[in-house]
């Protein structure tokens, strides 16, 4: 069911509603909250949550007979309404990074109010999933993120069955993120990063949709007759497992690889060339054997910018904890 949860008004008097989609079982079960659209250009996330909502509607209507809703599921497909409408990453009016606006403020301006509304609607959930990708200049393999050492989140990520789960170190900035606030309230919370920002990859979305269904079954908010999710070959990468390659020179970066490539030490990842002469300034080479999870896609680079992230599978996962 599409529920209207907040009303905003523009200076020209136009109403702009904020919605959530909800599905509830008759029995009181666990609650899963999924928030997306934190930026205006996260199209994979938008497609993914629309696909999921359509599926859950079908389950509710009895059209997907193998499935049954056991708990409460709420999906907030678009958080940063004005950025989505304006076609920009952040809302041009305040230029704030929406994911850092939590826990928000009821009496504040639109970004504060939306953040507060989302926070209030989700903070008593058992599980929280923020669908969020970062920089449109850096293509990342679809993966899940959680805070280093967060065991509840690891367990939730286990149900997602993604190839890559990255643990991130907490910083003074990440403390402001929605998943950090959820975790502080005891919500098992993850960030799902659905690939490249600013483009739409329908095949990837379909694949991630299947993973989300598995996560919901694992979390006990959805049941499927017969089969259980197949255990996936997921790996948990800690900050120590990651190697970052940076540009020693500025210029035009021309990649020679793609995210998801299994690399050997010494493999060429790309090169940096001078913009004026085309002269080769630097060759970028994999320093270790591993999986390429991040790659610069915006060709202009400054000196000392991240070009690629390689993870080496040191810690196998799932494991007991």
């Amino acid at each position, binding site marked *: 069911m599409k529920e209207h949860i907040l009303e*905003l*008004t*523009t*200076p*020209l*008097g136009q109403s702009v509603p904020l919605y959530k989609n909800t599905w509830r079982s008759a029995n009181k079960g666990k609650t899963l909250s999924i928030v997306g659209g934190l930026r205006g250009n996260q199209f994979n996330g938008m497609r993914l949550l629309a696909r999921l909502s359509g599926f859950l509607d079908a389950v509710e209507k009895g059209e997907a007979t193998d499935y049954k809703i056991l708990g409460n599921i709420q999906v907030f497909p678009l958080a940063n309404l004005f950025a989505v409408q304006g076609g920009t*990453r*952040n809302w041009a*009016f305040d*230029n704030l*990074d929406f994911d*850092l606006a939590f826990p928000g403020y009821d*009496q*504040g*301006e*639109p970004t*504060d*109010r939306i953040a507060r509304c989302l926070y209030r609607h989700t903070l008593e959930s058992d599980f929280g999933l923020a669908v969020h990708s970062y920089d449109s200049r850096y293509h990342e393999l679809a993966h899940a993120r959680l805070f280093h050492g967060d065991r509840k989140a690891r367990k939730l990520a286990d149900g997602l069955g993604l190839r890559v789960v990255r643990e991130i170190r907490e*910083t*003074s*900035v990440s*403390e*402001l993120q929605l998943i950090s606030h959820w975790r502080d309230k005891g919500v098992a919370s993850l960030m799902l990063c659905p690939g490249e920002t600013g483009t739409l990859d329908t095949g990837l979305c379909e694949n991630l949709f299947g993973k989300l269904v598995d996560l919901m079954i694992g979390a006990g908010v959805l049941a499927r007759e017969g089969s259980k999710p197949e255990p996936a070959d997921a790996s948990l990468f800690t900050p120590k497992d990651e190697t*970052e390659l940076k540009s020693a*020179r*500025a*210029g*035009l970066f021309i990649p020679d690889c793609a995210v998801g490539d299994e690399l050997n030490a010494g493999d060429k990842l790309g090169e940096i060339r*001078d*913009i*004026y002469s085309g002269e080769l300034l630097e060759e970028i080479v994999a320093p270790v054997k591993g999986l390429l999870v991040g790659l610069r896609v915006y060709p*202009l*680079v*400054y*000196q*000392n*910018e*991240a070009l690629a*992230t390689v993870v080496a599978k040191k810690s196998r996962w799932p494991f007991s904890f």
Partner: protein
Amino acid sequence: MQIQTLFQYQSPLGVPIEIKKQTFAPAAGRPAKRISFVAGLHGDEWEGLYICHLLSRYLQDLEETHAESFVGEINIYPAANPQAVCDGTRLTPFFSVDANRSFGAGRSDSLPESVASDLFEDIRSSSDFAVDIHSSNQRLLELPQIRIVEEFDLSLTPLASECNVDIVWVHPMAGVFRSTLAYNLNKARVPALVVETGICLRIHPEFCRQVFHGLVRLMRHVGILKADDPLEFQTKKPRVVYPHEVGSLQAGKSGLFVHQMKLGQSVREGEKAGEIIDPIQGRVLEEIRFPFNGTLFTVCENPIAYEGAPLARAALDSPARK
């Protein structure tokens, strides 16, 4: 005075982006104390650049006429985010990062955070005191003031009281401050004041001179400059306000805010502050009236108002109970 390039990074054009600092050394021996002034972390806030210019001119003259006045060391970082200053943007261009929300993360994947980390280390290691100068944002005009997070009240308020500002506002902690320069310096035991004055994209010379006089006073107070030069300085004792002594006025409706408020104006409860109009329907949506008696130290200069927008802040005459 020496100008030093702290560090540089190359742009795709092959041009170096350089962060520079000016250093005024003591007349003799080791510096008694060291102070740093930082401006231009947000590239659309130019009042701080002009304040640094006034400081630099004054100190250069003083070096020629009263060199013995320099007991300590003074560092000035007039444009700490040079790319943003050149583009006149709050965020660092190309990277779309807020430089004053990049501290405290340590060295990281992102170039702006690495630069912030190096800048922080340079300021921390060469300062016993620091002042970071800002100009609010593109919407709010501020009377010269210093803002202090409550946990640093005891150590910072006596210093702020020397700075010739109108208001010292001691406010509660919020998560966003954790990634600011001043908060991290204070945590690293370098007392750091945040000046807010004027508004983005403008220079208010009278406010800048007021703050400049205050910063010279501060240097005399902490024993970095000897008070033996003949120039007369303004001396203003600021009003120190705590959270219960600050009143704020917000928009109840979205529309265009039209007002005649003035900074420093003394206002009475019930007095009209302005109105919010609906430009499509030709109606007045809301008459804005002050809900307090006080003196305005923040006034909204951008007419676009969404419901909840801050329109004014005041130091209250008779504060609400704590």
